[in-house]
């Protein structure tokens, strides 16, 4: 039933009708009518962050850990521009977000009014779609369309920009059921002919590999279940991108670990040597492929992706299948069973034999140390201490993120929140806040670096306000570790501006915010400190875990090199590091 209400009422009504429980935001002049409405209702709980960037990452963490749409509310001008990083981040990692931005009144648009910016112009390339709502009569429709677009097809962030006068004006409200989008209907069912050809190719594989990505997780729990079923049916080895960790369990026997620049030897060598590659919901990102003309040279490739523009973008594939992962996997399994396909058992046994040889390289080994905490060891101990809990992990960006991906093992999807595509330092703490709100009883740990955590440290205040027991485990090596590692590899070990001269006292800092601070610098004390961190209730913790300063993250495929050209951990000499990257490789990121 259509009913008349103000624009601000329409916003809250639409959010409630969309099932939104949490709204991450920060007030300002151009959204005051909406905030007034928030005050007068109790269906949607507003979470006040300390900077708009935090609201976006919190919504991302919320979305990724629940599969629901994350929702943010920010004001015009600086509110909107502070949201840009989070929007770009969500676009790269395909996270469904609806970000509502206030705008100056319509008659002032284009006038360089106070706190005015061209929000739809600025956010156009970093959203899936955006709208400037000039009439209150369009508002309800646009908001419902926004939710539809954000979560349909390849998910992504959208912006709805609402001028202040539209928030005050009265208009008709229409419910979500009455809205049908004019144009946007992404294809979800894969083409049957392509699926049949793909399954046939899979059955013929002598050295097959399943290469899975974030698309499996975005497709929902059913996709995860089907992926596991397909693996069981075929006994193919599985590797995953950073974004796809948890879709296939790390404890599964077919798990090869993550692939790519800091992936395992077994995963990368298997990708290089395979004859049939089945890419499910991944996008041949440059962190994955390495040198593209040497990428998996002997394989025929199947690519399942809901976004047609991902197909043949970086790597030419033999069988593209445009569709939703769950739908396509369901069909693949049905075809496999219907046609009575089986695998080449002898070839597969040989393939597994080869993979076991690569596994025997133990590529993730590192030199243990009894005096200094090795960062890898710290994550191993964190994993041991939390594996029996209901645990969610977020990260910042850098070495600690890669170590977390290598040493923390995920058996379920939606447990791993990290900024993969954009690589946004400062993502982890606000994301952990979003996760904790969605899962109040769970253990939520932000595995952080000392540099990254300072990028959104103000969100400690948010965690304290809402009594969120978020654990921030800072692997503190006093460096921007990944920058320093690259400077060592590429720039003659000249550590230009990558050392933090004046580190805050993280224990005092935690206490200043009203949280708990813990410090530990001895391997022998580590387990106790982790236990202490996990025991904290009702408040956030900053755990300043002092780790080896100059540890490098290995294995590593240096820029411009192929998958079979990896650098391994403890055997790498300074001389090899010097020669690892050629002149041309230095131009790459």
């Amino acid at each position, binding site marked *: 039933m259509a009913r008349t209400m103000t624009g601000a009422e329409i916003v809250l009504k639409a959010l409630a009708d969309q099932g939104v429980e949490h709204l991450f935001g920060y007030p300002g002049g151009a959204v005051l009518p909406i905030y007034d409405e928030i005050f007068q209702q109790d269906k949607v709980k507003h979470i006040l962050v300390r900077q708009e960037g935090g609201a976006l990452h919190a919504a991302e963490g919320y979305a990724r850990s629940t599969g629901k749409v994350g929702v943010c509310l920010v004001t015009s001008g600086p509110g909107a521009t502070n949201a840009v990083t989070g929007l770009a981040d969500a676009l790269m990692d395909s996270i469904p977000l609806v970000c509502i931005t206030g705008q100056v009144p319509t008659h002032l648009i284009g006038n360089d009014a106070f706190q005015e910016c061209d929000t*739809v*112009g600025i956010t*156009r*390339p970093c959203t*899936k*779609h955006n709208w*400037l709502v000039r009439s209150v009569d369009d508002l309800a429709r646009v908001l419902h369309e926004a939710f539809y*677009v954000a979560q349909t*097809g*390849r998910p992504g962030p959208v912006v709805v920009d609402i001028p202040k006068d539209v928030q005050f004006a009265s208009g008709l409200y229409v419910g979500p059921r009455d809205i049908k989008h*004019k*144009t*946007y*209907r*992404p294809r979800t069912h894969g083409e049957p002919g392509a699926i049949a050809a793909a399954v046939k190719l899979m059955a013929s594989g002598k050295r097959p590999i399943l290469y899975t990505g974030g698309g499996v997780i975005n497709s929902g729990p059913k996709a995860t279940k089907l992926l596991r079923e397909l693996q069981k049916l075929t006994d193919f080895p599985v590797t995953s991108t950073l974004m796809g960790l948890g879709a296939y369990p790390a404890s599964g026997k077919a798990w090869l670990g993550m692939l790519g620049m800091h992936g395992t030897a077994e995963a990368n060598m298997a990708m290089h040597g395979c004859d049939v590659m089945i890419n499910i919901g991944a996008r041949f990102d*440059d*962190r994955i*492929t*390495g*040198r*593209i*003309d040497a990428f998996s040279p002997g394989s025929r490739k199947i690519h399942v992706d809901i*976004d*047609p*523009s991902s*197909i*043949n*973008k970086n790597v*030419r594939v033999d069988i593209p299948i445009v569709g939703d992962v769950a739908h396509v996997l369901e069909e693949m399994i049905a075809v496999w069973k219907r046609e009575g396909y089986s695998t080449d058992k002898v070839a597969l046994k040989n393939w597994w034999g080869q993979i076991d040889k690569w596994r025997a390289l133990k590529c993730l080994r590192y030199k243990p140390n009894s005096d200094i905490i090795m960062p890898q060891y710290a994550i191993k101990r964190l994993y041991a201490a939390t594996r029996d809990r209901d645990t969610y992990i977020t990260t910042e960006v850098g070495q600690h993120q890669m170590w977390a991906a290598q040493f923390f093992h995920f058996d379920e999807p939606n447990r791993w929140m990290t900024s993969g595509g954009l690589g946004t330092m400062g993502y982890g703490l606000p994301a952990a806040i979003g996760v904790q709100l969605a899962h109040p009883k769970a253990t939520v740990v932000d595995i952080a670096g000392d540099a990254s955590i300072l990028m959104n440290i103000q969100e400690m205040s948010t965690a304290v306000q809402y009594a969120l027991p978020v654990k921030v485990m800072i692997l503190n090596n006093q460096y921007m570790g990944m920058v320093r590692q690259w400077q060592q590899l590429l720039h003659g070990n000249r550590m230009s501006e990558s050392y933090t001269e004046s580190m805050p006292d993280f224990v005092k800092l935690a206490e200043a915010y009203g949280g708990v601070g813990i410090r530990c610098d001895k391997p022998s004390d580590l387990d106790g400190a982790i236990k202490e961190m996990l025991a904290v209730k009702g408040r956030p913790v900053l755990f300043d875990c002092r780790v080896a300063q100059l540890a490098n993250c290995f294995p590593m495929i240096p*820029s*411009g090199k192929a998958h079979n050209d990896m650098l391994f951990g403890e055997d790498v000499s300074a001389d090899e590091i010097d020669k690892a990257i050629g002149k*041309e490789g230095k*131009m*790459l*990121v």
Partner: protein
Amino acid sequence: MSHKPTGSAYFLEETKVASESHTISVLVDNEPGVLARIIGLFSGRGYNIDSLTVSETEHEKHLSRITVVTKGTPMVLAQIKNQLDRMVPVHSVHDLTAGGDPLERELALVKVAGTGEKRIEALRLAEIFRANVIDASTEHFVFEMTGRSPKIEQFIAIMTKLGLVEVSRTGIAGLARGPQGMIDKTAGQSS
């Protein structure tokens, strides 16, 4: 030392495949900002725009048709079409060139100033090219001509010697040959 071309992060294969020029028709909702979205896609991803025309063609449905001429390898052209197709306000994308020799026309307004022999010669050539005079004084003509781009190029090249002042061109409008129209993939769907 010869540099290999680089992509955003890694070496890409050197382009051995030749670039082709394609005319692409895009049916879009005529909503504010839609042209900016299309242009932003091309500039943001480094695609070429050789020509672009846009106008609302179905007023009741608020549909605009954008005709864009672009250059790229077959892989890039496929990317362009897919990238356009996934945009929210885009109804359909149709590669006219891939469908076979499309109808392409452009309109140009050409101002030529001069007196005496040159002026007479300009008028005489305009007749040969079937250009119309739409404005004139004793010192100038403005010609209007329609045709395929090479014909317009040729006319302009000739007029350069006869006192060309300035030119305004519309860019290419194109349609596929035959009785069928462009299929709106979203029309008539009910799911």
